[in-house]
């Protein structure tokens, strides 16, 4: 398929984009920048806060349930006028909605709060939870072959003949690490693209960014984002030119993986050490990736070493 060259209009700053496609993409994350510049700042925006906070009340499904639960557990066991007024404050607060608590499973939550272990519960607590949410962590045994020089069975001593040590063949034993924690990269991608907030910032088509100020005759190519880079454009072109999958005419996109791993100490005093594998998507702007509060860094795995196999692996959220 021949790809056309499509240039956008120059903007105020003399910037324009060059797409290698037959039409401009309908999905343009950068349009959001005009209306959503404060996302680049660290001052929390109410809508984001609200969206993210729903999850932060776990195991309570929402804020209303949490407010009531907290009042019940944390406000002393004796009823008092003061406590009663607090209850009135809660149910008259604008954040409180009685509809939110209609389906709350109080007994289940109390059990979960009292349990010291991570409860893996098949029963879905959240009424509107996306089925792909939280999916994909696995604990897999990993085996390696360990070579040994001598073939003697354990504890037997090398046999000596005519005063010389007999040269023995090596042997190999399998060593297995019981629990390598890892996550399917596909499930991370699925989860991301199904999430409306994350998807709208996900660049599906790379483009060249050019600068042509004022009366300049030619433009200068700018670099700044992965999805402006020759590598991404090349990958995109390569994918468009692949033979079509049988019967498939769906749009084809590159999901750009950016991996990183770095051993890290968890505590100042303990020996708990982690060697996580992180994943970012090159389709996200660096300005968003660099913002920890947006949670664009995914944990894919926790590597282990033979010299550290007993290291404590924390329970994942």
């Amino acid at each position, binding site marked *: 398929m021949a790809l056309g060259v499509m240039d956008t209009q120059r903007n105020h700053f003399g910037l324009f984009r060059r797409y290698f496609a037959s039409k401009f993409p309908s*999905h343009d994350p950068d349009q959001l920048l005009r209306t959503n510049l404060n996302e680049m700042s660290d001052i929390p925006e109410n809508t984001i806060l609200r969206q993210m906070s729903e999850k932060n009340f776990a195991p309570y499904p929402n804020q209303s349930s949490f407010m009531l639960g907290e009042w019940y557990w944390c406000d002393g066991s004796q009823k008092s006028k003061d406590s009663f007024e607090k209850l009135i404050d809660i149910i008259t607060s604008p954040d409180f909605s009685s509809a939110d608590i209609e389906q709350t499973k109080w007994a289940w939550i109390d059990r979960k709060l009292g349990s010291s272990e991570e409860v893996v519960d098949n029963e879905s607590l959240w009424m509107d939870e996306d089925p792909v949410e939280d999916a994909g962590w696995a604990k*897999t045994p*990993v085996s*390696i*072959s*360990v070579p*040994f*020089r001598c073939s003697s069975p*354990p*504890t*037997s001593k*090398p046999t000596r003949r005519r005063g010389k040590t007999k040269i023995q063949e090596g042997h190999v*034993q399998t*060593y297995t690490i019981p629990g*390598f924690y*890892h996550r*399917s*990269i*596909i499930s991370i*991608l*699925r989860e991301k*693209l*199904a999430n409306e907030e*994350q*998807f*709208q910032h996900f660049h599906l088509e790379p483009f060249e960014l050019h600068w042509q100020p004022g009366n300049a005759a030619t433009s200068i190519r700018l670099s700044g984002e*992965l999805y402006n880079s020759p590598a*991404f454009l090349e*990958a995109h072109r390569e*994918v468009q030119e692949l033979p079509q*999958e049988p019967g*498939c005419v*769906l*749009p*084809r*996109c*590159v*999901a*750009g*993986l*950016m*991996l*990183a791993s*770095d*051993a890290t100490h968890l505590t100042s*005093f*303990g*020996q708990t050490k982690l*060697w996580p*594998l992180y994943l970012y998507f*090159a389709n996200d702007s660096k300005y968003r990736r660099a913002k920890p509060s947006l949670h664009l860094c995914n944990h*894919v*795995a926790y*590597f282990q*070493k*033979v*010299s*550290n*196999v*007993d290291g404590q692996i924390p329970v994942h959220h």
Partner: protein
Amino acid sequence: MVRFLFTTDIKLWQLPDEFQDFYVQHSGGKGPDKATITFLNRELFHAQWKTIIDDEFLEAFIHGIVILCADGVRRRFYLRLFTYSADYPEK
């Protein structure tokens, strides 16, 4: 207190009893030397990567994977690796 911190840090890199026992049992009494540990850590690292790059990953790499996006459009996504920044803890 500072001394204590250093002590725990050094201990971290010693072999845990479990692997040490395994090695001693099969070697006829000797523990692994430094080069062997480096070799084994590398083997283990690659074995773990093999687990991450499973059949599903390879399928998505070669043939793409169809995913329903939040805008209601199905698209075929091809995984491509752009960067991998890593340390080398065996050094």
